[in-house]
């Protein structure tokens, strides 16, 4: 029983890392949002599995929130924004995807190398979740710095946040996980609304962040 529960947890956490890689090389926004939905779906499964294994019913709530909010509503909202902004046909120019992917592999190796030795004393289930969660976080950061589009940066942040949720769910018996994940969802919802609220398109005529970089308050 224990071996199986460990393997499934490892499979799901590994699936999340894989989904992060899939996101990194999507240059079309809509395709990337589809992968983001899948990313959150895998996360919901991983959290539900942790709820089952740890016998922690409150984690099912987190899993349900993830499933409804992050796997369904958020990607849909972003998709509508992308279509309304009329950028769904745009192909994002990411320089040297190959190098970025290699850097991603390096980051995964780094996080395993860092986390596995120091978590030797913790439960093996927690251990693999934390190590792979760090990979997802780092891959999210990598994607944020390689993208110049506001929507892709938000999507990258969402994947980063999924990694943190995985870590929180994997930390056995951690209190307030549900509350924290709700608070985090509020932050994320703000971000998505923010794309609209800050009217990046109307103000800058583009969602390309390079337009922002050119503008620095000092150079008047």
């Amino acid at each position, binding site marked *: 029983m224990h071996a199986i529960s460990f393997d499934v947890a490892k499979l799901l956490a590994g699936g999340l890392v894989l989904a992060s890689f899939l996101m990194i090389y999507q240059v079309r926004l809509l395709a990337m949002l589809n992968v983001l939905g899948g990313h959150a779906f895998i996360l919901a499964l991983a959290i539900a599995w942790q709820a089952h294994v740890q016998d922690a019913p409150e984690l099912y709530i987190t899993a349900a929130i993830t499933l409804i909010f992050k796997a369904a509503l958020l990607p849909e909202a972003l998709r509508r924004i992308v279509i309304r902004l009329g950028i769904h046909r745009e192909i994002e120019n990411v320089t040297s995807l190959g190098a970025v992917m290699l850097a991603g592999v390096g980051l995964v190796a780094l996080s395993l190398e860092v986390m596995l030795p*120091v978590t030797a004393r913790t439960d093996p289930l927690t251990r693999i979740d934390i190590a792979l969660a760090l990979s997802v*976080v780092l891959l999210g950061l990598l994607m944020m710095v390689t993208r110049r589009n506001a929507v892709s*940066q938000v999507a990258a942040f969402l994947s980063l946040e999924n990694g943190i949720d995985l870590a929180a769910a994997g930390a*056995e018996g*951690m209190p307030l996980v549900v509350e924290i994940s709700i*608070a985090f969802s509020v932050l994320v919802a*703000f971000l998505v609304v923010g794309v609209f609220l800050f009217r990046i398109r109307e103000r800058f005529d583009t969602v390309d962040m390079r337009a*922002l970089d050119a*503008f620095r308050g*000092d150079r008047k």
Partner: protein
Amino acid sequence: MIALAGVLGVPLAAAALLAALPGYRLSARINGVASFIAFVAALLLFWRRPAVGPFMLVDDLNVVFIMLSTFIGFTTSVFSASYIGHELATGRLTAVYLRFYHAMFQVMMFGMNLALVSNNIGLMWVAVELATLSTVMMVGLYRTHEALEAAWKYFILGSVGIALALFGTILVYLAARPAMGGGLPGMAWTALLAHARDFDPALLDIAFVFLLIGYGTKIGLAPMHAWLPDAHAEGPTPISAVLSGLLLNVALYALLRFKMLLAACPGSIAPGPLMIVLGLISLLFASVMLYRRRDIKRMFAYSSIEHMGIIVFAFGMAGPLGNFAGLLQMVMHSLTKSAIFFSVGHVAQVKGTQRIADIGGLTESHPVLGWSLIAGVAAITGLPPFGVFTSEFLVVSSTFARTPLLAGLLACGLLLALGALLMRVSSVAFGVVRGPVAPVEASYLPIFAHLALVLIAGVYLPWPLVAWFQHVAVLLG
């Protein structure tokens, strides 16, 4: 218990009330009154502490922070009342935005106070996030191109920062788990500190790195500081004052709490050197950057990075003297910097610009404003007889006694910043009068109150305060 309810409940109730009330005059007054009640409640915490619970904690350390926070919150609300009247008159803000602004101001105060009194490291994180979100909304209030860019930048960097801080928080829980088991006590700071001896040191080390980078982004430490100048320059000036005076301190407070855990856990890395390096980088970087500033609010934002660098450096040096100097520097910086932003806010309003080149001869056209700006800058650059001189002198001299080389770098940074600020402020305050000379409707009281406190602290630091800070410095280890 009543005092705690006042510190937390009053801002929350006021936020709800202000969101519902039209009319900015009444709202500005209610904002001020609510902030004052919160300040009185914070004073009460000195005498009547609630018992330590799984969520709330009031101890000798955070009382200092809460007092400072609510006091500057109150003076800022007084300043804000006169500031926004002008913004409304010039049409930069509309009544609807002001309603939103007042409600958000109180939400931010609630978030900061909650972060300061929370005993649970998860709750503390949520509170810091709440304070961040409310300030993001206010930074973007003017809805100009620049303001929206600043808000978006702050939002993205702040989100990544607090996301990393949450990862660090989870790792702290994991490091504690073998020693404490799961459940609510596993995240209560007091319980964590009591058991810190048995924590997994390696895991705690990594947790601290994440916390340092995460909360360090919110402190405004150098490689992660990019949001800070924009947010200070483009938001309404009362928000610049509370950002510099309060929000940076709240993030620092969170970091100090975790530093105390590390100090109590033998076998973990010493957090000091990491903080010293980041603090020194921030100080030197910001001092050099000060020379190229053309926007007056942006310039003082860089000065905030510089000072947070000094403060983090001092806490990194640790020991009773280092911590004492850090605490004093933090209090002095908060008071002085918010006083500077109060006067800069009025200057920018009367001159209609934030460009340094377009402002000149202030002491001639607006003597009170000009001289209070000079007094503020003299204080912030560490000239005697102001309190910042005392604290910076303590930082440098205590460092010199232990590592002369670091003291040299520190002194370099301080002198560079002194030169830059004096150069800029002299062109703003003296010389030919540039820009409009219309009389200003300013509320000088908050500026004078802050500067007077800083002056008194520089001339004579009352012994109960010294004893208190010494006690807290020992607690910080």
